């Protein structure tokens, strides 16, 4: 796909990390001889993202997600491989490239700490060379969309985390980026605020046909926004495809929830009982056995209700993160 918004080919990032043992002697020795270790944070990943696509980039802490986003936004130079965003090599940090992307990190503050956000917005207007009228139009619409009209006049340091995040997002989108890298944009926020930001991202993407790459530890974010997910672990891509296909690939089992006519009975003979709540018994059954086990239960038990489901996405992701796909 040559017209991909994001194209990553065998991308590698290696960090050289200093290390030493604990204690005074080791500290003194490190004065003379410094010991370092190579860490391959990203190890040969490849993928493409089409214009207008929204992709969830999932992985446990230290998997290489943020490092990848930092390479794609031009903050880090790649160690090997190739990355292109909107046709640009990110690490060259060309003006045209930087004017068309944005990286929003949930724990980072880009606004002037001591001044109201409106002042920072004005600074961004001048940095991104936005003519005044369209700037005011965009600013006011974003402020309205995220409902931060009463916040943008307060010094940023006096805002709560959630308030700051919303204001931060306004500041990051004033130049209407075509590619949006969102790194944990809802981290630390309450459920209402998370939902608000999710809705906003969906709306922004729809209106601007923006390409969005999102990392989040909240599966609700991913389920609400992303059809496609890329799962990364130890710098390697473990899965790249539609979210619903993740369970098929990673989890070789399904759950069967059974309600019996005479209350919860012993169903351990059909599979692993993972949950028993009142009348409902939930079994874990190997995918290949699902049809046969279902038929047996229906034939041998007085069944009121029976549901066969893929495992919850949280469980699947947990499996991937644990590095033990079954």
């Amino acid at each position, binding site marked *: 796909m040559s017209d991909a918004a994001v194209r990553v080919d065998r991308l590698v990032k290696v960090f050289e990390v200093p290390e030493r043992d604990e204690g005074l002697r080791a500290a003194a020795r490190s004065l003379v001889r410094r010991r370092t270790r190579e860490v391959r944070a990203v190890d040969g990943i490849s993928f493409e993202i089409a214009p207008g696509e929204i992709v969830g980039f999932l992985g446990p802490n230290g998997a290489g997600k943020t490092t990848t986003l930092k390479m794609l936004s031009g903050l*880090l130079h790649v160690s090997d491989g190739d990355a292109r965003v909107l046709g640009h090599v990110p690490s060259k940090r060309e003006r045209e490239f930087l004017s*068309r992307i944005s990286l929003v990190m949930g724990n980072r503050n880009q606004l*002037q700490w001591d001044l109201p956000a409106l002042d920072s917005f*004005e600074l961004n207007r*001048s940095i991104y060379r936005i003519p005044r009228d369209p700037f005011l139009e965009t600013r006011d*619409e974003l402020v309205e*969309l995220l409902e931060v009209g009463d916040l943008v006049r307060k010094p940023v340091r006096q805002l709560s985390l959630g308030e700051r995040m919303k204001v931060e997002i306004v500041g990051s989108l004033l130049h209407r980026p075509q590619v949006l890298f969102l790194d944990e944009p809802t981290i630390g926020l309450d459920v209402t605020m998370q939902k608000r930001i999710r809705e906003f991202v969906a709306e922004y993407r729809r209106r601007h046909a923006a390409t969005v790459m999102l990392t989040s530890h909240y599966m609700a974010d991913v389920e609400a926004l992303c059809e496609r997910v890329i799962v990364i672990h130890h710098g390697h891509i473990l899965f790249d495809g539609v979210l619903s296909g993740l369970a098929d690939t990673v989890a070789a089992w399904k759950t069967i929830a059974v309600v019996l006519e005479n209350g919860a009975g012993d169903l351990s003979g059909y599979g692993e009982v993972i949950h028993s709540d009142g009348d409902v018994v939930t079994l874990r059954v190997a995918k290949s056995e699902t049809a046969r086990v279902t038929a047996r239960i229906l034939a041998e038990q007085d069944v009121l209700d029976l549901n066969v489901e893929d495992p919850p996405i949280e469980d699947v992701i947990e499996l991937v993160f644990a590095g033990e796909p079954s």
Partner: protein
Amino acid sequence: MSSVSAVAPLRQESRLRSLADFYWTTIRLAVVEQFQYRAATYMYILGMVAEPVIYLVVWSTIADQSGGSVNGLTAGQFAAYYIVWTLVRTMNIVFTPYGWEWRIREGQLSGQLLRPLHPIHYDIAFFAGGKIPWLLYYLPIAGVLAIIFDPTFDVRPAELAVFAVAIWGAYLIRTFNQTAVGLVTFWTTRVGALFSLYSVLELLLSGRLVPLSLMPGWVQSIAWVLPFRWTFYFPIEALVGNLSDAQLLAGLGMQVLWMLIGIGVFSLVWRHAIRRYTAVGN
């Protein structure tokens, strides 16, 4: 939920015009921020005035005890030197290597690297803007010092004009030099020791501690070929000394030379340094 109306990317203004707009916006922002912290500013001014006043009292006393002058400098000339010194010191405050160390170590540089404008522009504009309130604070201080110490001023229009240019030249030279020192953090993680060495050299060879004319000849020779003299002594000398027009122009020429060297060194270091950025912490 309401919606964002325009779909197309925003049109951008021309490069030069937008750069001027950026500088103006940042300068205004810096002024606003300076006014926001009045108490801190007053304390900072006190500290700023204390240093030259101590030098001034010491040298005035020595001059009085030495029959009215030291190496040809009278008490009135010392007063003029240190009153202008205070202004020059104020005007050439720049973003320090410690600031760069913080940016790099804590990953704070990330936000600036994501912008389509080199971070050095922000530093130059912001610290230039910070000088506007400082000038307002300086004027009454200079007035009080003048009343107390009775300085000798004999200023020609050409000297005033060169001084007005030279203080900005000094500011830019210090900006590029100290930024280059700060960028060493990319290799060493901490830059304090190197900056301490730099500061000692600057203190001795710039005319900050002692007017260079009081230094031994060989020290003056070394100072002539280093950048520090052109960031302190030359602007002060341009206003309170007796430099000929040719010497004034030569001084400006040296400032241009050191500015070009500073830009060159800074650009070279930046090109290599930025590849090492790990954006840790942010």
